[in-house]
C-alpha cells in the first residue's frame, strides 16, 4: 500500500518552524500528523520513539498538529500547551508528557506538566487564555488537509503518505526502504 505511486505528498515542506528531532541531513524524514487525545496516536507514540532510537541519526522526526476537535474536545488545548512549551524551547518534553498522560489533558493537568518541566507557568497560562498559538495549530491542520491527511495519526515518509500499517515492523521497513538502509529484523532491536 505504501508503495502506491499516487499516494498524496506533503503540501508543506519541513521548515524552520517545525518541531524536529534528528539531523537535517538524515537519510529519511518521518512526519506525523497527530492529535494528543487520539488513542491511535497514543498507541503510535511508543512505536515512533522506538523507531527514533533504532534509526538514530538516520532519522529526522517531525510532529505536526492535527487536532480533531469535534471528537476530541481537549485535543486543541493540549496542542496549545505543546506549542506554548515550544515557545519556551521545550516542545518535545511536553509532547511526551501529553502522550504519556492522554487521559489527563484538562487545563489543570496541562499546567501541572508545565510546572514539572520548570516552564514559566504563568506564560503558559496566558498562552492558553489568549490562544496565542491557535493560528499555528490551524495552519498545521490545514496544511495536513491539503497534504491528504485523512485521520490520525497520518505519517509521511520522505514526503509521501504512508498508507500501510504503523506497527513497528511495517513503519520501520518503510522508513528503511525509503532511506535505502539495510533491512534487518527489528525483533531483536526492539527487545
Amino acid at each position, binding site marked *: 500500500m505504501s508503495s502506491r505511486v499516487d499516494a*498524496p505528498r506533503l503540501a508543506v515542506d519541513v521548515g524552520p518552524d517545525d518541531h524536529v528531532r534528528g539531523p537535517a541531513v538524515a537519510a529519511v524524514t518521518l512526519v506525523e500528523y497527530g492529535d494528543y487525545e*487520539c488513542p491511535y496516536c497514543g498507541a503510535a507514540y511508543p512505536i515512533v520513539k522506538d523507531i527514533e532510537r533504532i534509526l538514530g541519526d538516520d532519522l529526522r522526526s517531525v510532529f505536526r498538529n*492535527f487536532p480533531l*476537535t469535534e*471528537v476530541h474536545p481537549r485535543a486543541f488545548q493540549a496542542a496549545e500547551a505543546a506549542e506554548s512549551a515550544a515557545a519556551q524551547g521545550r516542545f518535545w518534553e511536553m509532547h511526551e508528557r501529553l502522550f504519556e498522560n492522554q487521559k489527563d489533558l484538562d487545563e489543570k493537568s496541562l499546567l501541572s506538566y508545565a510546572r514539572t518541566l520548570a516552564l514559566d507557568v504563568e506564560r503558559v497560562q496566558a498562552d492558553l487564555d489568549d490562544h496565542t498559538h491557535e493560528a499555528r495549530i490551524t495552519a498545521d491542520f490545514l496544511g495536513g*488537509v491539503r497534504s491528504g491527511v485523512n485521520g490520525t495519526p497520518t505519517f509521511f515518509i520522505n514526503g509521501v503518505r504512508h*498508507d500501510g500499517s504503523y506497527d513497528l515492523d511495517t513503519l520501520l521497513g518503510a522508513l528503511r526502504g525509503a532511506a535505502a538502509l539495510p533491512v534487518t529484523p527489528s525483533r531483536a532491536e526492539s527487545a
Partner: protein
Amino acid sequence: MILAFYPADWSPVCGDQMALYNEVLSEFQRHGSEIVGISVDGAWCHRAFSEDRNLHFPLLSDFEPKGEVSRQYGVYDYAAGESKRALFVLDGGGVIRWSYVSPIDVNPGADGILTALESIAVPVPQ
C-alpha cells in the same frame, strides 16, 4: 454541493472520513459549498452516529430502496451491499464537476474536494 458516499457508520478509527469533513466544514463553506454524507445506514443509525461524532452536516440514508441513489451515481458495491467510498462535487446547476472513487479501505481525505471547489467556485469573502 459535495456528495460523500461511504460504506457505513461507526468506522473504528479516529478521524474517519465523516469526522474529517466535520473539521473541514468551514473550508467547504468558505467556498460556498455544503456537504452531505450518504450511506445505506438507516436514519436512526445516522442520528446516533451523528450525535456521537458531533457532526454538523447532514447524513442521508440510502436505505429504501436500498442503495438506489448510490446505484444511480454508479457507486454501489453489490457484493458488500454498501456504497463505495466516492466523492462528487456538483456546481450550482447540479452538474457533476469532479468525482473520485477511493479504494474502499482508503479514506480519500479532503484535498481533492478542496482542489475541485477552488477550480469551480469563487471564495466567499470573509
